[in-house]
C-alpha cells in the first residue's frame, strides 16, 4: 500500500461539536487509523503542522487574529482543505454577534454582568485581537470541500474522509446532507 495519508484538524471559533461528531464514527475510528495518520489535532500533542498534510479539516469560523493565522497556516500546509460544519461555512451561531458592536458584547460580560467585581474589559497582550465580526472560512482562503451540518453527522464525516483518504472525490448522498 502507498504511504498513509495525513490528516490535520483544528477548531477555530467553534464549539468542538464537529470534532466530537468525528469521534462519533466510533469503531470506524480504528479503521481510519489504519488508513491515515493524524498530524496537528486537538486529540494529540502536535501543536503545528510539520511539512505538508493531505487533508485539513477545519471546524469553526474566524473570530480573532489567532484563528486567522491558524487558518492561513492550514491552507498553506494542506493539499485539500475541508470546511466542516455551520460555523466554518457561515460563521454559525457565534456570528449572531455580527449585528452588534464588539464593545457592547464585551461590556455585557465584563462590566454589566451579574455579580462582576473589578469590572473592566480584559486587555492583556496575550489575548489575541478580536475581529469585529465572525467570518466563514471561504471569505479568507480557498476552500476545497464543504460539509454542512451542526455538526455534520458522523456518517457524513466518515463518507467524506473515507473518500478523501482513498483518493476519491467525496459526494454526499442526499440522505447525509443535513443542515441542522
Amino acid at each position, binding site marked *: 500500500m502507498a504511504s498513509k495519508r495525513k490528516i490535520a484538524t483544528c*477548531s477555530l*471559533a*467553534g*464549539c*468542538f*461539536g464537529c470534532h*466530537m*461528531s468525528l*469521534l*462519533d464514527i*466510533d*469503531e470506524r*475510528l480504528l479503521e481510519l487509523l489504519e488508513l491515515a495518520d*493524524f498530524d496537528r489535532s*486537538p*486529540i*494529540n*500533542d*502536535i*501543536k503545528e503542522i510539520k511539512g505538508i498534510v493531505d487533508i485539513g479539516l477545519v471546524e469553526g469560523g474566524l473570530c*480573532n*487574529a*489567532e484563528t*486567522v*493565522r491558524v487558518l492561513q497556516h492550514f491552507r498553506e500546509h494542506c493539499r485539500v482543505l475541508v470546511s466542516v460544519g455551520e460555523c466554518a461555512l457561515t460563521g454559525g451561531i*457565534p456570528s449572531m*454577534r455580527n449585528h*452588534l458592536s*464588539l464593545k457592547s*458584547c*464585551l461590556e*455585557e*460580560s*465584563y462590566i454589566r*454582568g*451579574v*455579580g*462582576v*467585581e*473589578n469590572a*473592566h*474589559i*480584559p*486587555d*492583556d*497582550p*496575550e*489575548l*489575541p*485581537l*478580536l*475581529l*469585529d465580526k465572525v*467570518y466563514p472560512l471561504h*471569505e*479568507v482562503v480557498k476552500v476545497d470541500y464543504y460539509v454542512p451540518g451542526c*455538526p455534520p*453527522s*458522523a456518517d457524513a464525516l466518515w463518507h467524506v474522509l473515507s473518500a478523501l483518504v482513498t483518493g476519491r472525490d467525496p459526494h454526499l448522498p442526499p440522505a447525509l446532507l443535513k443542515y*441542522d
Partner: protein
Amino acid sequence: MTRLLETAAHPRTLRRVAIEPLTRVEGHGKVTLLLDDQNRVHQARLHIVEFRGFEKFIQGRPYWEVPVLVQRLCGICPVSHHLAAGKAVDMLVGARQITPTAEKLRRLLHKGQMLQSHALHFFHLASPDLLFGFDSEPERRNIIGVVREHPELAVRGVMLRKYGQEVIKAIAGKRIHGTACVPGGMNKALTVDERDVLRRETTQIIRWCQEAVRVCRDLLDKCEHAPIFGVFPSNFMSLIRADGALDFYDGGLRARDASGAIIFDHADYTRYNRHIHEEVKSWSYMKFPFIINLGEEDGWYRVGPLARMNICDSLDTVFAEHERKLFREAANGGMQHATLAYHWARMIEMLHAAEGIERLLDDPDILGTDLVTKGERSLEGVGVIEAPRGTLFHHYKVDENDVVVRANLIVSTTNNNQAMNEAVRTVAASYLDGQRLTEGLLNHIEVAVRAFDPCLSCATHALGKMPLQVELVDAGGTVVDRLVKGADGQFCDALPTFNYDSGP
C-alpha cells in the same frame, strides 16, 4: 506560595514560554510562563483566549429558542447547557415541578452525557499521560498510541462513549445538539423499542465502568507523581440532594472548605448571586468566581468530580457508593486535594451514571407520555445543574414580549478558573523551576490542566479585548475587514506584541 506566581514583579526582564494551543483538552486556551536566566518561574498563567459574546447576542431572542441556541456553546457537553437552560425556561413558564416522566427523561439524558463525556475525557484524552508517562514521546502520548499499545482499553473507551451517545440520541434525536427540553417539559416520549435496545446493554456497560474505575486506580497507584503532583488545598462546591446524596440534575448548593467544614449548605441556587461573585482579570476572558463571604483571595473553589466526591455524603447506587467509600478512605475521611484524584472521582461518577441509567430504564415512568406542564409566567429564570465538569449556572430575564433581555452564564470550567491556575503554578514551582525546559516538562503543566477536564470551549462564551488593528484579507488579496487602534491609542499588529507593563 503559588499565589505569588500570578504576576511577576519585573516582567520585562523575563523570558516568555507559551504552551499553545493546549491540546487534549476541549476548547481553546494557552499557558504562559515567565522565566529568568536561571529558568526560575516568576509567573504562570492559564489564559482563555477566545470570546464569543453569548450573553449579549442572545438578547432579543424569544426565550423558547434559548435551550437550543446555548448548547452551541459546547459540543462536548451540549446536553448540560440544554438542560440548565431548559430548567431556567421552566421557571419562566411557571413549571416549578415538571411531570415525573419529563424529569426522568431529563435525568436519563443527563446520565447518558455524563457517561460519554467522562469516557471521552479519560480514555481519549487523559489516559495516555498515565499509561505512557508525562514526558513520554508526544507521538505516542495520544489516543492513537493507546489504540496501538492497549487496544482493548481504547476499544472500551470508544464503546462506553458510544453507549452514552446512543442514550442521548434516543431522547434528543441527535448525538450532538439534539433537542429534548421544551418550556415546562420534554418534546418526545421514549418508545418501548428504544428503551429495550438501551436496556440490553446495561449489564455490560456497568461492568466495563467498574473495570474502568479499577484501571484508573491502578494507574494512579503506579504513578510516581500522584501523591505530590498538583496537590493544594481549596474550597469545594456542588449541588446536593436534600438528604446529602449527590444529585447531578437538581438540589441545593453546598460548599466545604479545605478541611471539610461546611461554608453554606442547601442554598437555593436561584439566589446564587448571594453566594458567588466573579472577578475580572485583564489577562483572561474567563472570569474568576469566588464565594463572597471569603473574598477574592480566599473564596475560590473547585467544582467537578473531585469536588462532588468530597462534598456529598453518599451516592445512591450500590457499586459507585462502594467506590466512593474507598475514595474517601484514601484521604482518611478528609478532603482529597490531589489534582490527579479528579480522574479517579470521574471514573466513579461514570459508574454511578451507568447504574443510574439502568435504574431509570427499569422505571415504568420512563415510558410515560405526559410530558409538559406549565403554571404562572414569570420574568426571571435560573437553571443550575452539575455538568460533567462541575456546577453550571444559567440565568435569564425576559420582558412581556417573551424576549430575553439579560443573560448570565457561569460555566463549569469558569468555576475552576482559579483552581486551574493554582494547579499550573503548583506544578510549575515544583517541577519546572530552575530546570531546562523540555517538551515533556511542559506537558506536566498540561497534565495538571487536563485533570480538570476543562471545557475551554464553554468558557469562551464571554467576549474580549477591543481590537487595535487587524486586517482580514480574502483569498483574492482584497482587504475585507480592518480594525483600527483601540481606545487607549495603542498599536498592535496581528500577533500580540508583549508589553508586560499593561498587566494588572
